[in-house]
């Protein structure tokens, strides 16, 4: 379980998270929606210990993420993360991209790492691209590579930060389909997204972020189709 407890986070004078609490159970998919600058990405970065927090607490499987004694590199192995920019490693083939972390972080043998990487690449539909260099692929393919690369570490959770926002519209579908597949397989996910249809159909719950707080959270269909908070209503009427 991921447990975010009253987290405050500032960049200098700018308070970006103003007391955020959120529990995500194993197997649950939570979508996070909200306006630009409301702190959605920052929340994911704090969960993954890429950013520090000022106060509050974040627990991942009862481990305090921001405690001094916590091994952050070890912790991140549990938390797969995919970003808006796919960040393929351009000097490696698709297979090498996905096999790198299992090999050097988990110290697997080359064969073992390749085996796992290959399986995850097939999983996301890139089984025929193993020896291709990622720069030769479309954004959608590279984003699926990023997903497979994260999955190859066998994470318990996936944190996804607007993974379709930088894609051409015609490529969004293939990536969302991949995420839908993961959700069906029971992967625990926190998805920051602007795809309201995806949030409604794929996630269990939706959280609406407004200026650093969760203004509304509830069952996915309810939040998207029948929001209770006037702020959520206003936001949804604008993005639709």
């Amino acid at each position, binding site marked *: 379980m991921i447990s975010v407890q009253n987290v405050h986070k500032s960049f200098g004078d700018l308070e970006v998270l103003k007391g955020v609490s959120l529990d995500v159970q194993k197997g649950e998919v939570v979508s996070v929606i909200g306006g630009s600058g409301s702190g959605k990405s920052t929340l994911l970065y704090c969960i993954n210990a890429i950013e520090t927090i000022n106060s509050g607490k974040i627990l991942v499987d009862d481990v305090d993420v921001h405690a001094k004694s916590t091994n952050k*590199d070890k912790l*991140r192995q549990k938390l797969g993360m995919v970003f808006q*920019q796919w960040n393929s*490693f351009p*000097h490696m083939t698709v297979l090498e991209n996905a096999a*790198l972390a299992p090999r*050097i972080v988990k110290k697997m043998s080359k064969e073992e790492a390749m085996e796992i990487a290959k399986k995850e690449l097939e999983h996301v539909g890139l089984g025929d691209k193993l020896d291709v260099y990622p720069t*030769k692929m479309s954004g959608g393919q590279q984003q699926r590579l*990023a997903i497979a690369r994260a999955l190859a*570490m066998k994470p318990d959770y996936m944190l996804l930060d607007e993974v379709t926002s930088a894609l051409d519209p015609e490529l969004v579908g293939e990536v969302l389909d991949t995420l839908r597949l993961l959700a069906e397989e029971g992967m625990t996910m926190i998805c920051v997204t602007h795809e309201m249809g995806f949030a409604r159909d794929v996630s269990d719950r939706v959280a609406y972020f407004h200026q650093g707080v969760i203004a509304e959270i509830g069952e996915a269909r309810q939040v998207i189709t029948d929001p209770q908070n006037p702020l959520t209503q206003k936001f949804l009427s604008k993005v639709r």
Partner: protein
Amino acid sequence: MNSLFTPLSWSDSGLILTGVWNTVIISVVAIVVGTILGLIVGFARSESNKVVNAVFGSLLDVLRSVPLIIQLILFSTFMGAAGSPLAPFVAGSIVLSLYTMAFMAEVFRGGFESVSPSMQTAARSLGMTKWQTIYHIRLPIGLRAVFPSWLGVSLSVIKDSALVSVIGYMELLRTSEQLISRTQQPLEILIGVGIFYFIISYPLSYYGRYVERKMAI
């Protein structure tokens, strides 16, 4: 017939080859040492804060903007005056290596800085440590990005090595000057020397193009 000048002959080839060899050897030393030091300094510069960079940066600026010929003369004169004169090869190697380092450092710094922070964050998010990220991501991507510039610096070092003749190192240019003053055949000799410089540089630029083609993925 006795003349003050003796024409070029086959017996001069030994002298010429010594010149060629000396040019090659001092160039290789400067490129290798300059590359290694440049990597370290360039990396440090891409990592460190503004203060360190300001100090370091102006030092490199001096090395890069004072003409090499002046650096050579000053350094070897200084060492002589300080009571520990160095052999021309040693003094030349030190100055040329540092001069090369100054250019390489900026080349490598640019390469390391070209690797986006988000690429490194992505690597860290996979559980890679800071040093794993540097070794497996930042170094290889950064080096590839600057390979053509590295090649350019290396090729100009070969040409710049001609200046080490001013402190008495018998490299290609100096041997040719000696031959010219003896034979009074400047045209033939300078053309020949030019060809030798080309022959020395060619393997490097050929290899460079080969590597670039391999990397153009």
